[in-house]
């Protein structure tokens, strides 16, 4: 009977004895006990309540790994075939818990503490002080404002990427060559782009772009002298690197559009512009949104070009949140405040992306 309703096709019926179950439970609870004991001992030792303990937390890590192995093994011992199924996901769950959830919780505890690495007093919980500091920190709000500008630039990048993808999708000469050539900026490290373009080609005295600018009549070319110009140049360098990424995604989408649909539009008398706006563009929306979404995520991490080329200047005009946190954390060793800024930024990103996806969903799937 059981076999008939078991949609997972269990091939054997386990004969699990009470002794075996007891063994499994002993294994998991015993290893958990060792782990908890070690955590407690080390915590008490670190806080000066115990005179003995380990030099570092590494033995606790080993105890955690031991518990994880015992926990996985106990699933099979206690639950037999069902336990084996659990093993397919359990290691991944434990890995995610230890590599993502635990660090996140640990990070949160740091975010609400006063921890300057140069302070002889070490770390101390300081409640919402870091939040108050952030609220009054003009550098952080300035960086957030800049991120809005940088993110808005994605619309222009998308338009250019779409244009290039259309070009490469048409029957042009040396199509394969252009596909590879257009992809090359994506293969470059942003730091290399910063040096090659930002610090060399745009160098005002010797850089070839500056020379060209002088040749066409701009007597004193300046690419980073004013806030607007500097921000624009950062956008251009970043766009140059990442437009190929959007372009290749859109190109893949264009190639997947059935020829019949476009031919039908032609037969019905649609002009090229009508065919694009009424047929191609709507069909491309899902892939376009995916490309823009991924690009937004990339953009929100923008830092390397800024750090290398402008250090956030002039006067913070090009600062991104990440480049500001980088300075706060690395140059000023302000770990507590830097972590809080990063956490708040994470929350802002999650909320913004969720709203964006909801809006897109409503637009793409209107509920009448």
């Amino acid at each position, binding site marked *: 009977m059981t076999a008939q309703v078991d949609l997972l096709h269990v091939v054997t019926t386990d004969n699990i004895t009470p002794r075996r179950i007891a063994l499994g439970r002993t294994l998991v609870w015993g290893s958990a006990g060792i782990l908890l004991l070690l955590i407690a001992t080390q915590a008490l030792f670190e806080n000066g309540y115990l005179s003995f303990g380990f030099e*570092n937390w590494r033995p606790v890590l080993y105890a955690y790994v031991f518990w994880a192995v015992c926990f996985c093994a106990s699933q099979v011992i206690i639950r037999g075939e069902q336990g084996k199924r659990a093993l397919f996901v359990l290691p991944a769950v434990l890995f995610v818990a230890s590599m993502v959830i635990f660090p996140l919780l640990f990070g949160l505890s740091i975010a609400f503490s*006063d*921890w*300057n*690495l*140069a*302070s*002889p*007093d*070490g770390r101390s919980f300081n409640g919402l002080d870091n939040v108050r500091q952030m609220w009054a920190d003009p*550098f952080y709000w300035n960086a957030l404002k800049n991120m809005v500008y940088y993110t808005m630039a994605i619309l222009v990048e998308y338009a250019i990427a779409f244009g290039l993808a259309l070009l490469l999708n048409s029957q042009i000469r040396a199509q394969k060559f252009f596909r590879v050539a257009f992809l090359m900026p994506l293969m470059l490290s942003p730091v290399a782009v910063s040096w090659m373009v930002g610090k060399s080609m745009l*160098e*005002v*005295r*010797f850089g070839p772009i500056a020379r060209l600018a002088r040749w066409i009549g701009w007597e*004193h*070319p*300046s*690419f*980073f*002298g004013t*806030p607007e110009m*500097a921000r624009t140049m950062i956008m251009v360098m970043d766009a140059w690197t990442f437009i190929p990424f959007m372009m290749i995604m859109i190109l893949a989408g264009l190639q997947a559009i059935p020829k019949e649909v476009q031919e039908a539009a032609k037969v019905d008398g649609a002009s090229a512009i009508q065919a694009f706006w009424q047929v191609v563009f709507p069909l491309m929306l899902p892939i376009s949104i995916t490309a823009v979404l991924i690009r937004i995520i990339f953009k929100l991490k923008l830092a390397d070009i800024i750090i290398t*080329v*402008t*250090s*956030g*200047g*002039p*006067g*913070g*005009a090009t600062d991104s949140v990440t480049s500001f946190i980088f*300075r706060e*954390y*690395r*140059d*000023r*060793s*302000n*770990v507590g405040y830097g972590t809080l800024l990063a956490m708040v930024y994470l929350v802002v990103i999650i909320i913004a992306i969720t709203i964006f996806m909801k809006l897109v969903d409503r637009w793409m799937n209107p509920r009448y």
Partner: protein
Amino acid sequence: MKVELYNRMRRGQMSRRGMLRGAASVGAVAAAGGFSLGLSTGPANAATDLRAALLKIPGVGTGSPSDADYQKVGEMTLGPTKAVVAEGEFEGVELTFLGLNNQNQHNFLFRGFLKPWEKYTGATIKWIDLAQADYNARLQQSIATQTVDFDIIEMGAPFEGDVTGRGLASEMPEWVKDVIDMDDYVDYLKAPVGTWDGKTYRVSIDGDCHNFNYRTDYFENEDFAAAWASEGHDGPWEVPNTWQKVQEVTKFLTGKKDPLSGLDAHGYLDPLKGWGGFGFYFLASRATAYAKHPDDPAWLFDPEDMKPRVNNEAWVRAIQDVLDVMADQPTDQINADPGTTAFQQFLAGTGSMVSWWGDVGAGAKTSDSSVVGEVTGFSILPGSDDVWNHKEGKWETLDTGPNYAPNMAYIGWGVYVMARVDADPKRHKAAWSAAAHLGGKDLSLWASAYPSGFQPYRKSHFNVDEWTEAGYDEAFIDDYLSSEADSYNHPNAAIEPRIPGIFQYYSVAEDELAKIYAGQYASAQEGADAIAAAWEKITDQIGRESQTALYRASLNL
């Protein structure tokens, strides 16, 4: 050559005491050996021979030294080590060395220098190479998380508060002091630098100060001289020796043409972009002549309570000076960091005056990208006609003339041994022996003469004859060395406070300065007040009481 000599001496069973007598270098060893073996070379000549031979590796003008050269230098300067360490004495000892990899220098040289040492002593060294930008964070994290995983560290004196102030460094044994001849250090590198609570921790391998680099062709230019006179400026057309004159010259040069390139002429080059905290040194170089009063050792904070002085009238005047000549700077100067002003501008022929460490002088004739090797002159930083007396709250004109206060920016690199080796006498001796080898008197001469990242820092480095014999132009090297020596030995030198987190203060100041230079504050005073407020926050966060105590200790108060 001298290694062979040394080996011959060893075979002659020279005593350790005899070897050390006379001089703490292989020169002395060779000299003593020479005497016992009946060679005609006297002690002084032998030492000179060794130093002359060292400076010929590979020879000035024969390209950059290679790893083989570093090893050769390390081998030739092993004498003092052999005097106190028996061959194979450190067999089985492994030490970890944390240092920099800037411009393929620092650790790259140390590896070569220490290879013969490893071979002789039997110890091995594991290397941790760091980029300059990662150095502070790595060090602070190691300290804060109590994971100091290195036995020897290359470190600047500004970090002494972080390391020695917390008892993390090993106190220097007496025998090391003899080996490295600390009396030979220039005066400003002697205690309290390298010491904490009266104990010595540092083997100096570098001396740092900002000097004033200028273009001689500008100040010998007859057209400029005529224009200067016709415009009614006071005094002759000459290298400015006060910041007031630097300002006047900078404005005067606007609109004129560079005598070398024919492009726009420029005066003093201010780096207006931050440089991981290091950019603040350049405002400090403008400010010290205003802010460092000869009767007051402090110039950055009040020693009583760490109240910042960065918003007093002296500093505000320095900031205002920068603002006043921003329009006279090259295009895009707002995006120029100190590296740009030195290497992409001054050495490449843009601008006529720049403050920098000795690298500009060292690179003027040796850097492939330098076009100013024949037209560069050097002096100590300009002075000021008046100086701010912070205690009295007024500007003063000194009877002695302009106030000079060379900026001892960064106080140079040193080698420090960490306290974690103290528990094991063998490791302790091995670590200190390695540090002493790198800080040896003769080895340091070579390092200050060739691209290494290190400036001259010993009195014995300022013997012009040695440099000219090695191939340097006498007038050039005399000028360069004088600017360094006069800065180091200046009685009113502005010495940086060695307190924990000093680069945090500099970093946050850079952010505020960027806003000041971008015109986001109504006045220089308002911007300076913002820096002071940020500094107060840092002091409170690190701990005002401990900072004040450490600051006072660093000032020897």
